[in-house]
């Protein structure tokens, strides 16, 4: 069938080239150093394509509100764990100070042992609290994923059907998996690492301030500088990141063209140079973008690399401390806490800096989810009206996807119950779009579609959809048993009715031959049913639903001859006595239709029975003769 909306090929290529590619740009290059700054969890965070929007923290908090208590609990536990960890180092510093103060052996040894036990307790406590924090965090993580998936499902259930047709399914998948995965970071790590770092810093800094405030200020200067440098590196990179993402898109599409084109080149000769050139130039551009991106930040990154190293803080503490001792401002034993606890300061900060990248990606994913969750639902009438009869009417209908170009303009037609209306015309004429307006995949831009005398926008969508059967070429199967796949046409149908429908669709024998019979579960691959059989299954579903209106895409040519014949027999059962609207590809199938609508570029150019139109010698007649001579060639 010709598809409504953007051309499938274009859409596919577009979505492929939009996927993040190449060396993913990280939020910052400052984090790309050694010294323990390298991200781990952040590596799985993709930067979304085109115009990524980070969700403001306020909205993130709103989104996370169902797990607020767990998140806070997890963060508090990890702050306590970090504090306990620092305490175990404080204990060592105290052991050293006590041992060196040396007033009397007995008192000294008791105090030293007390601190040693404190150190042990700190280490053990940290382990336990870390475990607990992770446990609570993971629980929150799993709960939030579940909650958001259900929220998404609810929202998707009320969106206009046309949305799913355009690029919807892929977006659903992205939201349900990739985006939620990226957000996992937000649930499980971010708050924990922020509060963890805060806990560690508070305890460490508090202790050092008590020991000697001047030395404490000197010690804290180094990590402060590195945080400032880090922020600078983060800020300046945004423009380059856009260029980098664009360059990655080019690499991606050049790679797609290359592998697709290679079969052409291999079969028709020629050389791969042309395609390879394109790839190389894409890669060169990527390199240049990467270079520009890094060049801007190289100095900051290098300085930061030095500042985040433990060795740098060791140097500063040793130099300043020994100076202080020399000057008589500080005793040697009071310098020791700075060597033990102070040197560890960057280590507690690093996870914090690391998590900012994951956080950005998570917020972008959250932005995407939020956008999905706030899509406008298909407007449902406050007081739905119930149609009387099944006459289908299009009253001066116009439709446009983009609000500029009309895909259908000013079409009026009336389809009486028990008649067949055929839609014919070249591809792109608007046949599929017209058919898609009836189940309200889209709402008309002007005019009205009425079924049973009631505008379809004034009917509840369940009433509307239950009144029609859609038999399209892209077969919709549920990942469920054969029985349930048919029964969904009428959820209260008995097993016997399901079987009767399968028989009418010439499918009963086929199902009986399946390994599990009617209980065989159909997966994405179709569970052993051929294309024609899957199509007949949807016809069985339609027969069961007994809907008075049937909308049909007669594109059975995709099937091999065996299947095609069987599908046609099944269709014959389905359409009998109903209001049938069929998109016809082979004109000979519709010679008995009650009316034929010839569409061209969104306009109704001819309208009548096969015989009338043939006699008129216009557009339809030309199509008919073209097909006829084609078949006779």
């Amino acid at each position, binding site marked *: 069938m010709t598809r409504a909306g953007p051309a499938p090929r274009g859409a596919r290529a577009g979505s492929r080239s939009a996927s993040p590619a190449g060396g993913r740009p990280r939020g910052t290059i400052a984090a790309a150093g050694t010294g323990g700054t390298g991200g781990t969890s952040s590596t799985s965070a993709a930067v979304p394509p085109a115009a990524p929007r980070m969700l403001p923290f306020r909205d993130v908090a709103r989104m996370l509100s169902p797990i607020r208590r767990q998140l806070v609990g997890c963060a508090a536990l990890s702050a306590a764990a970090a504090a306990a960890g620092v305490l175990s180092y404080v204990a060592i510093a105290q052991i050293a100070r006590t041992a060196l103060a040396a007033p009397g052996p007995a008192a000294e040894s008791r105090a030293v042992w007390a601190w040693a036990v404190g150190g042990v307790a700190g280490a053990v406590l940290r*382990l336990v609290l870390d475990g607990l924090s992770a446990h609570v965090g993971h629980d929150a993580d799993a709960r939030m994923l579940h909650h958001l998936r259900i929220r998404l499902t609810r929202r998707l259930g009320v969106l206009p059907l046309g949305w799913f047709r355009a690029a919807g399914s892929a977006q659903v998948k992205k939201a349900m998996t990739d985006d939620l995965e990226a957000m996992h970071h937000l649930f499980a790590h971010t708050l924990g690492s922020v509060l963890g770092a805060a806990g560690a810093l508070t305890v460490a800094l508090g202790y050092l301030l008590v020991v000697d405030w001047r030395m404490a200020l000197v010690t804290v200067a180094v990590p402060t500088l590195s945080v400032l440098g880090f922020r600078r590196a983060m800020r300046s990179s945004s423009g380059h990141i856009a260029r980098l993402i664009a360059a990655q898109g080019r690499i991606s599409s050049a790679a797609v063209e290359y592998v697709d084109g290679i079969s052409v080149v291999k079969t028709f000769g020629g050389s791969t140079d042309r395609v390879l050139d394109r790839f190389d130039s894409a890669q060169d551009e990527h390199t240049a973008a990467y*270079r520009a991106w890094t060049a801007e930040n190289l100095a900051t990154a290098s300085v930061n690399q030095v500042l985040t190293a433990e060795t740098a803080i060791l140097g500063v503490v040793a130099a300043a401390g020994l100076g202080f001792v020399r000057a008589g401002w500080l005793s040697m034993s009071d310098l020791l806490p700075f060597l033990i606890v102070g040197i560890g300061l960057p280590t507690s900060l690093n996870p914090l800096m690391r998590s900012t990248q994951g956080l950005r990606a998570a917020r972008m994913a959250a932005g995407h989810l939020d956008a999905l969750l706030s899509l406008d639902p298909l407007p449902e009438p406050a007081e739905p009206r119930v149609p009387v009869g099944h006459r289908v009417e299009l009253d001066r209908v116009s439709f446009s996807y983009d609000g500029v170009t009309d895909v259908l303009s000013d079409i009026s037609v009336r389809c009486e119950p028990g008649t067949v209306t055929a839609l014919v015309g070249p591809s792109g004429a608007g046949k599929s779009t017209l058919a898609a307006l009836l189940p309200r995949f889209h709402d008309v831009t002007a005019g009205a579609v009425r079924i049973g005398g009631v505008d379809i926008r004034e009917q509840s969508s369940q009433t509307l959809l239950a009144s029609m059967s859609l038999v399209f070429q892209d077969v919709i199967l549920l990942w469920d048993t054969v029985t349930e796949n048919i029964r969904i046409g009428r959820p209260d149908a008995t097993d016997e009715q399901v079987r009767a429908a399968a028989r009418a669709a010439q499918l009963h024998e086929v199902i009986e031959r399946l390994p599990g019979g009617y209980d065989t579960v159909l997966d994405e691959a179709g569970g052993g049913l051929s294309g024609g059989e899957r199509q007949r299954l949807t016809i069985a579903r339609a027969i069961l639903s007994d809907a008075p209106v049937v909308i049909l895409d007669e594109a059975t040519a995709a099937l091999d001859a065996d299947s095609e014949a069987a599908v046609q027999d099944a269709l014959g059962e389905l359409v009998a006595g109903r209001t049938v609207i069929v998109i016809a590809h082979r004109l000979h199938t519709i010679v008995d239709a009650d009316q034929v609508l010839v569409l061209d570029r969104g306009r109704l150019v001819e309208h009548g029975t096969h015989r009338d139109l043939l006699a008129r010698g216009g557009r339809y007649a030309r199509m008919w003769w073209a097909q006829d001579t084609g078949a006779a060639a």
Partner: protein
Amino acid sequence: MIRRLWRLWPSPGLLVRLWLLTAVLAVLQGLLLGLLVPVLRALLRPEPDFGAATGWLVLGSAGLLAYCLLSALVAPVGFAASMELAVQLRRRLMGHVTTLPLGWFTADRKSHFVRTVTNITGELAQLTFVIIAPAITGLLVPITVVSVIAVVDWRLAIPLLVCLPAGLLVLRQTRRTVAEVSAAMEVGGNAVAGRALEFGRAQPVLRAAGLAATGGVRLREALDLHRLRYRRGLRRMLVPELAFSAVVATAYVATVLLGTGFLLDGTLPAADAVALLVLAVRFVEPFGGLGGHASGLGAMEYLVTCVEDVLRTRALPAAPHPVRAVPHAGIEFTAVSFSYGATRALADVSLRCEPGTTTALVGASGSGKTTVTRLVARFFDVDSGSVAVGGVDVRDYDHTALTAQIAIVFQDVYLFDTTIEENIRLARPDASQAEVLAAARAAQLDEVIDRLPAGWRTQVGEGGAQLSGGERQRVSIARAFLKNARIVLIDEAASALDPENEAAVSRAIATLGDDPARTVVVIAHSPATLRAADQIITLDGGRVAECGPPAELLRTEGIFARLSRQHEHTRSWRISARTDPARHQAAGDAGPSVETSVSP
């Protein structure tokens, strides 16, 4: 891991530079920390002896300066390296894939390859830097520190020395668990994704059944199950992570207790005890940090495997003395068997296509038609038997010489995003305008070109999106004409071609077959093509079921005769909402009278 990374790049010198720099920095850091021992020994006397410390302090300052200078190099070297590594690896992958047989290029493999060459390569290049470097630091700093401790007092080094291998063992286990759990989670995630996709696609059906808001029981079940599995997976990963922390914490606790004991029983001087406890903390911190890199390494291992898989695929073996000329266009299969993995596609197939004839392959999907055409073009090599072109086994040809004689018209034709003319001309870049025009006309393409806004100069869009499937196929046929290929293999589009296109493609195929030097093999669907064929070969379950001219086969009660009757049946089918007994009769088994209309 390091070794596997090493093999990926043709010139891994950059890796050496990067890793060596990191290693030197780590050892230097450990040694600088070690300097604390003599410094503290000198200064932790009742009266600090700065004189005794001066030498060490000068040494320390020099070391510090060196450290800062080297450390400033890390960022530039790292960026340059990861960029260069990505470029090199991409070139290597691209170069490699050109050597692979056409049979390799399935849709799945192509999309996986694109992902490999873009995301995976980029990520891998970056991770060699972002993951490996901190891992080196996390390992070498503790090793240097523990060496210093051992030199000063070996007793204190014992718990730390035990902790090193024990911790690494646990990390190994962690990596394994992470890999296992991630694989399981990916399966679970895909299941949910599948459900989600289904939910999106099935909206019309679900809404009609009133199930749109909940997505039905199955979706809910899948989500609940995933939540359970996910949490269980996270918990499983937590165990080795905590075990590693516990190993490190135990070593730390033991060192603290031992140090305190030795300090108090007087076997360790106070200054040494203090210095060693400071060092013990500097052992624990970086080593404990390694735990955070285990999952990163696991992720990296997966990426490396992806790249290796592509590079491991080999081209088909080349003949030692390749034949460079194809004597004639005849095709002969002798007792050919072929399987895709475990799936048997062809069993003992023998057939012959004479030069100048058109052979139509017929059969249900999965009967082996496509495989026959693929083996002619040597997409794959047969398991047994032989495929000969021009009387010579295809394996004995120089592959370029063979493909120069063959044109393949796929069902889904790929066009480059340029003009139609360019797309046809690529089959023979030096062809004259008149030759291109003639090829287009023979392929029934001229009327399409007339209709397009810019005619010959019309851009076809990415992948040829501006043209319909049948039109793209005709462009491909025009290429075959222009190439003047002596063997043309066609997979006639079966999917929803509109009748005009179908007729045009059939006419184009018939014109191809008019050349007495050319052999045409077509996987045929349209009756016109079938009627025009010189020979029909019916395949059934990978075996030749029937073979002969169409008129002859129609007289038998075989598969082809049945298929033809069904074609007729479908052609006589009419849609009508009226219950019409006559129609039902017509739609029943077609009588013998129908056969006559299929005569060639």
